[in-house]
Each structure stands twice: as C-alpha cells, then as structure tokens.
C-alpha cells in the first residue's frame, strides 16, 4: 500500500473521493473519466469481475465488433492509474451524510482466491464440484473454482461459495503452488468517506417466464437475447456454434420476437430502446454463421435511430433476413415438436402463422436497482427515485440505453460527481 502511495499520480489536494457503485461499462466509464481528470475514485462491483452485461456481449452493434477491444483499453486505463481503487465482490451496505461528505459502508464477500493467483488453472483440474456458468447464462458449467471469462479483470480465479465443498475437500488449496487460495477467508467491511456517489447499477432482463404465451421455460428452443448472445460467442457454451438447446441441431428457421415484454401494458409499457438493434445484430451474425438458415424479425416498429440507419439498411439488404411488422401474440408447440408463432401481419391485417425451430425473445430491460440498509434506489424506470444532492445515476440504472449512449451519459455524470466535491469545498 505504501508503495502505491509513493507512486501515486498527482491528485487534487484535499479533495474527497468519488464512489462509483457498479462496475459495468457505465460505472467503469464514470470511474475512469473522473480518475483521468485527477480525482480519486473507488469503484465497487458485486461480481468478481468488471464489465457487467457489456462484456457478456458477443458483438456490439452497429459495428459488429468485439467488446473485448474497448474493454482491454479500459482495463489498461485502470491498471495504470493508481487513482482508481477497484473492489470486486463488493456491495454498498449503507450511506449517510450529505453532498460532499458521505460516509459509506461497503461489504466485500470473500473471493477465497488472493492476488497471488497466476491463472495456472491447476485448481480447476482437481476441483470435484461444478456450478452453472452464470457468465454463459447458465447454459454450461464451470468448476466451483473458475476464471469468470478469458479477459476477466481482475485476472484472478474465484470460488462460488454455494458450489464449493469447503475445507473438507481442500483439494484446490493443496494443489495450488502459489498459496493463492484461502478457504477461511471472511467478508470484509470497509467504511469510507466520499464526496459523491454514483449508482451505475445497471439493468437486468425482464423475466421471460412472465410472458406466459411465449413458451419460455416450457420449450428449450425458446431462448432470450442474452442467451443468444452467449450462444454466438466464440468463448460461449458452444464455442460460437448455433445449436437448438433441445437437441443440438443447427436451426433452419430462426425467429426473433421483438418487444417481448416491452411496449405491453401487461408487462413494461415503455420501449427498452436497444432490443431492435440487438436482434438485428444477432440476425446478421446468424446469417453469416448459418448461410442456409431463414431468419425473421417480428416487430412493431423498427427503432434504430440516428446513424444506425445504415445498419438497418444492411439488415434489409440481407436475403436471409425477413423483417415482418406485427407483434407475436403467442407461440405454440407444433405437432412435429417445432414452434409455431401466431402473429398479426399489420400490413395485410391478417393473422399469420410462422414456424421456427429456434425462437429468440428480445426481452426488455429493467433496472437492477439497489437496496442498502438505509435507502433504496430506482427499481422501476417509470417511477424514478429522487436522489439527494451529490448522488447520481449513471447508464442503465437511470433509463434504458445502448452502449454508446450509456458511455456518454456516464461521462457526463463524472463531471457532476466532480462538481459535488467542489460543493463541499465552498
């Protein structure tokens, strides 16, 4: 610690720190941008790695480029900037005080693997337990001790406490040449004085199980957008091979159901803003990977704004992809085991039936929200929480946004968080 201080970049004298809660792409952005101005930032993330949902993506739209590319640069910016302190496995427990003078309590869950880990992987060879791989949307398994993903930052293994047998097994501890595993590790509580707090707690997918008529959870070949993202990823459960979960065959007909839960009074009245582009991106990838497949996107409106129009044109020009206006009302099991989509074709005004062997539900997004001991923040986009001065929402904690818009918003929030530190000086 002493060394780090000696080495510390110049910081603004007497300035308080900024706390950023949530280490997805928005939280990382707020933290890095503020730290590159010269302020000290504590970035906390509840998972054991940074990157949130963004790093789970196979590609970003509209460039169809890998998220690792930008993430690598951002991790480098964090690694070489000692003004940023990253705490993974950490949650905000309580906040007290006012703008410029907050006292926050954090709780860090034990990772059971310390900085001595060299990623050699010997531990996974001996570990007898498995866990569902949450990074791959539970579609495959890892050992109880695992590296979250290839570019995980911090680059350390971690243990899933619910899957691990603990000290009675101890195999990983014994095999580790680096004394990097401590199964006795306990949670750590930290209290901290900060000048402003940014909640970048992100989003989660609307629960597709609630969409009764769309067969999710009842038929394995009805999947969500996030599952599709991992199925398409080279580091996903199938190494990028597109397979029907039911029997592993390559699908011939794939249907995307837009507004699955969005723009629907029984579910989310609002538009989630990103699902049209997300499905188009996935459709373009499928058209390339499965050149003989027929792909349809069933939509209400194609909401691809601004410069992304060129991306829509690319989809329109793709002969494998059909864009069909009309909301899918229900999905049924076909007699041959396939899937039948009942949709309204708005252009002809008729009810239409489409068949598919893989259906992707473009599920809407809702804020993850945050609950601490003394208050809660935003669990519903429709009724945004009023935050006290000195506290801000960044990225999808506040509203549904795509990557680029999240980054812009999160950069702007860094400025507000800095201004709050100045308020305390006055």
């Amino acid at each position: 610690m002493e060394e780090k201080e000696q080495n510390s970049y110049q910081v603004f004298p007497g300035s308080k720190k900024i706390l950023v809660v949530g280490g997805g792409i928005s939280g990382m952005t707020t933290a890095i941008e503020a730290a590159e101005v010269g302020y000290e930032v504590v970035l906390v993330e509840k998972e054991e790695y940074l990157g949130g949902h963004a790093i789970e993506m196979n590609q970003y739209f509209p460039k169809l480029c890998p998220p690792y590319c930008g993430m690598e640069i951002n991790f480098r910016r964090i690694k070489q900037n000692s003004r940023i302190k990253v705490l993974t496995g950490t949650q905000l427990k309580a906040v007290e005080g006012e703008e410029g003078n907050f006292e926050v309590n954090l709780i860090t869950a034990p990772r059971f693997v310390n900085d001595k880990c060299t990623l050699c992987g010997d531990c996974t060879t001996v570990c007898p337990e498995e866990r569902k791989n949450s990074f791959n949307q539970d579609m495959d398994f890892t050992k109880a001790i695992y590296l979250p993903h290839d570019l995980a930052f911090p680059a350390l293994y971690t243990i899933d406490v619910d899957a691990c047998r603990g000290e009675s097994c101890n195999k990983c501890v014994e095999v580790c040449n680096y004394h990097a595993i401590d199964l006795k590790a306990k949670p750590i509580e930290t209290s901290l004085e900060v000048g402003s707090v940014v909640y970048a707690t992100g989003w989660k997918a609307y629960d597709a199980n609630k969409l009764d008529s769309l067969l999710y959870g009842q038929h394995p070949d009805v999947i969500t957008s996030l599952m599709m993202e991992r199925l398409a990823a080279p580091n996903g459960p199938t190494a990028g091979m597109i397979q029907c979960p039911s029997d592993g065959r390559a699908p011939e007909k794939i249907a995307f159901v837009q507004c699955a839960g969005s723009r629907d009074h029984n579910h989310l009245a609002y538009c989630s803003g990103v699902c049209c582009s997300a499905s188009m991106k996935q459709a373009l990838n499928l058209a390339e990977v499965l050149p003989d497949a027929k792909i349809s996107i069933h939509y209400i409106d194609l909401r691809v704004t601004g410069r992304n129009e060129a991306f829509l044109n690319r989809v329109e020009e793709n002969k494998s992809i059909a864009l069909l206006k009309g909301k899918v009302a229900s999905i049924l099991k076909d007699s041959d085991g396939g899937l039948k989509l009942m949709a309204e074709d708005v252009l002809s005004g008729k009810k239409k039936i489409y068949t598919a062997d893989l259906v992707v539900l473009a599920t809407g997004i809702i804020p993850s929200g945050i609950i601490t001991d003394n208050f809660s923040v935003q669990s519903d986009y429709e009724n945004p929480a009023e935050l006290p001065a000195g506290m801000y929402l960044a990225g999808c904690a506040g509203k549904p946004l795509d990557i680029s818009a999240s980054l812009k918003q999160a950069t702007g929030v860094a400025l507000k968080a800095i201004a709050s530190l100045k308020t305390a000086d006055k």
Partner: protein
Amino acid sequence: MSEEGKNTGVFICTSCGIKDCIDTSGLVKIAEEAVRFGNCIEQANLCHPEGIEVIKKSITDGKLNKVLIAACSPRAKTEEFRFNPDVQIERVNLREQVVGSHEPGDEDTQMLAEDMMRMSLAKLENTHLPTPFIPDKASEEILVLGGGISGITAATEGARAGYKITLVEREEKAGGWLNDLYKQIPMQSPWTRPQDPILAPALEALHQEKNISLLTNTEIIDISGQPGAFCVRMSRGGEEISKTVGAIVLATGWEPYDPSGVANLGYKDHTDVISSVEFEKTAGKGSFKRPSDGKPVKNVLFVQCAGSRDKDHLPYCSSVCCGTSLKQAQYVREANPDANVFIIYKDIRMPGMSENYYLEVQKDSRIFLTKGEVAGIIAEDDQLLVNIKDSLVYSDMDIAADLVVLAVGMTPRNSEDLKLSYKQGPGLPTLKYDFPDSHFICFPYETRRTGIYAAGSVRAPLTVSDSMEDAGGAMLKAIQCVEATKRGEAVHPRAGDQSYPELYMQRCTDCKRCTEECPFGAYDETEKGTPLPNPSRCRRCGICMGSCPERVISFKDFSIQSVSAMIKAIEVPDEFEEKPRVLVFLCENDAYPAFDMAGMKGLKYSPFVRIIPVRCIGSVNKIWISDALSRGFDGIMQIGCKPGDDYQCHFIQGSELTETRGENLQETLQTMMLEPERIRTEFIEIDEFDKIPALINDYMEEIELIGPNPFKDM
C-alpha cells in the same frame, strides 16, 4: 558494481511453468553478459510479496534505474510490478508468449526465450524514461463554441466543477433553436405532457455562475495552438478579441434539412407545405392559419422522414422528428378541438421512456397515425391532396389537408466554424454523415483534434434532454484534457503517457509525410513545409515515426534506434540450420492481448517468430523492415487492428496507412530482389486468438516454400 544512472537489474521469474519450459540459466548468462552494472536474480513467484521485496531491495541497494522483469505479460500483475516512478521497467513476456505457446524443453523454445531476453535488454539500453512536455503557463480556461442548449449546459456544468468558461454565440442572444420552441417533448416522468422549453431555467443557471463569460454576436476568426495553449481570435461585432484557452467544446448544433429537393413532397410547389421548423414558429399564437391565404386550418397532415432515411437525401434517422410531430399534432388539436391530424410514418421511433408520450398521443382519436409512403401532393379544390401508398389501411389513398407539415431532419453544422489554422484543415475530421467522431461506440467523445470535443447535435441528432446529457460528457473530456496537459500526459487512448515525439530537424527533408499522415493533425508546417510539432495535440501513437523516411522522429521510450537495436539483438541462424526467422510487428492494442490469450489457452504456434510490440501498426518504419531483411530474416509480418469503414484501429488510420505503405514496401523488396511474400500484413480482432496458430503457421509454411532469405550469409 555500480555507476550512477546506469544500473540495470534483471529479475527472472521461475514460476508459472517457466522453469519447466526453458533453461533460465541461459537467460541469466545473456543478462550477465549484457549488463555491466547491476545484478541478475532468478526468483520463484516473483510477483508475490517476497519476490517484490527482492526487487525493491535491489532497486534501493543497487541504485537501479532500469529494471527488466522476465516473467508474465506486461498486461498481467501490472500493479505488483510498479515501483518508484524513476525506475524504468521492461517486461519479457515469458509466460504467455513462450511457455503458453511453445513446446517445453525444446531447443527452439529456448532460442526464442533467449532472443526475447536479448531484445528486451537492447530496448532497455536504448530507451529512457520520458520527460513530460508541459506548455508554458498552460491555460485551464475552456472555450465553448455555440450558445444553444448544449453549449449553455456544457458551460454551466464546467463552471460548477470549478473551471473558467468563455461561451461564444454568433447570434445576439444565447439559446439557439430553443428560442423558437413553443413546447418540447417531455423530459421526465411521467413523460406524457409536452413541457415548457428548458431554456429559461438553463439560462438562469448559466447566469448564476460567476466563472462564465458569455460573448454574444461573436464569431471565431481563427484558432491556433494546442491543448493547454489554444490561441483563439474572435470578432465581437467587428471588434477583435484574443484569448488563450486550454480546451474547446464545439456545440454549434444543427441546421434543418432543406426538403426542396424531395420532389414528391412538394415543398417548393405549394405554399401550404411547410417544414416542422417553420410550423413550430407559428405555435402558441392561437389558431393555426394557412400561409397561402390565412384561412384557419382544420385538417393537418404530417409527413415523417421528410428527406430522412432516404439514400437520395438524408440517409440517417434524425431521431427527434417523431416526437416533434406528435407534439405538433397536439398543438393543432389544442388550438382547434375540431381539427383532424394525420401522421404518415415509416416507423414511429419513440425509444425508451418517450414511448409513454406516444401512448398518450394515441389516446386522441382525432390524431390518425399510419405507416405509409407519401407518393405525391397536388393542389385541388382549395386543398392539398396527399397521395399515400402502402399504408396500413389501403394500398393507395388520398387525404385532403389544409396544411402539410414536413418533419425535416437535422444536419450537423460544419465543424469548420472552428476555423482551426491547422495544416490538416479548419474543422474536425468526420467518420460518417458529416458527424465529427471516430470510435463512436466505445469512446464516443473521441475526436481527431485533441482537446476539441463535440457536444450535442453537431455530432449526432439529439433531443433537448439528450443534448444536455451529451454536453456534460464533452465538458468533462475538455477538463480532463486541460488537467492531463498540465501534467504533460497524453489523453485517451494512451492516457498518462508522458512521452512525445522529438524531431532531429537537421536531417528533415520537409517531405511532409508526418504532417500529412498524423491522424490527429498534431503537426503544422512552415511555408517551406518544415514540420512544426505541437506535442500536446499528440496522442503518442508513433504513426509519424512510422512515416518518416529520414528517421527524424523518436520518442524517449520508443524510437527507430530502440527497435533497430532489438532487431539486431536477435540471433539469425544460417540457412543450414534450417531455422527460419520471421519478425512480427504486433499492435499492442488488440493483437498483443489476443496473442496473450492464445498463450493462456495453450494454443501453439511456430517458435521461429520473434515479436516486437508496437504502439500502433502504423508506427512501423520501413527501415526496420529493410534492416531485418538484410539481416537475413526470412519474412516479416505486420499484425494490426481491423481497418475499413468499421475500423478498430485505436489511432484511426494506423491500419489503413499500413496497407497503403505496403506498396512502398514491395518496391523495397524488388530493389533487394526478394519475393513479395516476404512481407505480410494481417489484421485480427482481439477475440480471434483461436486463429493465431493458423495465421502464424500458414505463413511459416509459405516462407519455407520460398526458401531462406539469400541475405542470411552476407
């Protein structure tokens, strides 16, 4: 032994399979021969506290100022291996790029590791810690150009963060287009009612900030200089003012698209076909009247995407026009309860919470919305007859209207308003649709003119609330640039880098390659064409160094000399040993991490390659390639990030320049009477690590087919 200022410590880690893979005593021997003053230590678990302690103690005891760590990738254990800032650190990537990717105990693997040790020692010998460039009296003030809502917000938020701001507006008053708004689409919960324009409270907030000086009636004459020291000359109603600022926010906004050219919409033919901007100006003044004869209107038809989403006109979607028409439809209904409104759209795009407003408007049964294409408009019986094809209701229908409002798109104002007196021109380079940005997904504020950040609708069509959010981000980047410049550091993507290009002018031939190829316009020129560097405009990519035929340009820690020394350090076996050598220039940004990931996954490739990481593939100088070929290297690979329209090059043009310079290189090969295949350029994405073995091995096969480089024995 020790000598002040020239003491090198070499530390070789034996863990992570290194000791099992190679004979580290061979590396020790090389290090001991090369390092005259200092020490060489083998240590297990070098990154563990006991290892770090060993390094620290050596630094103190041996007064080391250069430290070479032969262990894992420089991307790993970065914090552990960070010492006193006066100590220069070099890393030899044994774990990922030797142990991970090559056979243990193999002679060729050993030769690779030993060459890597030699290369890093040579680099350390030939490089130095940078000394930062800090402009004299770096200014912390920020210029905001454009006094619309984006500029007002940027100025206010910048002042709140403690910075002095000059806000420049060419009109007589600030506010821009918001001065003409009757209402704006809702910005907050419950997003159901249009609200009063945010301009009045925004101006009030602006005037409360003591640190802002608002100059109206003012235009830029020209801007010269660099971050920390931009010299801005302005004309305020004819009077010239000068100012030095540290950074600039460009918030000059947008212009409505002129629909005159969209023949089927009849804007030029009919007085009662007007644009949404013109319609807005007539709102809030009682009932709406026809421009032609002043008669009150009853039936109003809105045409969405008037010129937008049309490859022949404005190819993109302007994002705000759907909301604008919904709002204006409500104006019509409010002014006349008997009025009917028709909205003809391609898609109704009210993303996010703005959907709530769309739902609200749909409740009005006299606002008819239909998807369709307007085929033509004709005047008939004192009315306009709008012919609509492919609607949801009929394939062909006519609607009679008293007034037709064209929802026109937004075009960015030309960034040449900046009037930069830069060699590369007065504005910001654009990527697509004249929007001045580059890596718009991951790094949306990155422009190609360091210290100048676009905000609001000059960069992309944005609603009022999105513009306000956007403005804060651009101001943050401007402030960040001011602070980084004060510290003598680069801004993104090499944030924190204190090196900068230094020019040995005696050898310069004024060929202008550096001034033309710098993606960030960092160089100006004298009339003769001699380059005038502006170090704080520089993003430290080294593309200028790669461009220079006379080897004039170098960085303290990355130079023609240092890379040449690395190439020289590699031992090239003669042709009878049948051990070809391929030199790989590897981009640090995407390709290098991909190679690391391949190593971590144990993907094996030929041990005959020797990798030199470079800041950008565009920083590779031709001289290194011809040096390597005359030393007997059998092939040269340049591996960079993806070029093209969707480029991933972090320095925008590096990969593209490598492609164009390729032709030049072929000439070099011809002069040397070598086969064209001896140089290959490849581009990979960061997640394509699984393709690396094939990429390398296929090239090795090709090289083996064409045989050894005849220069080997010369």
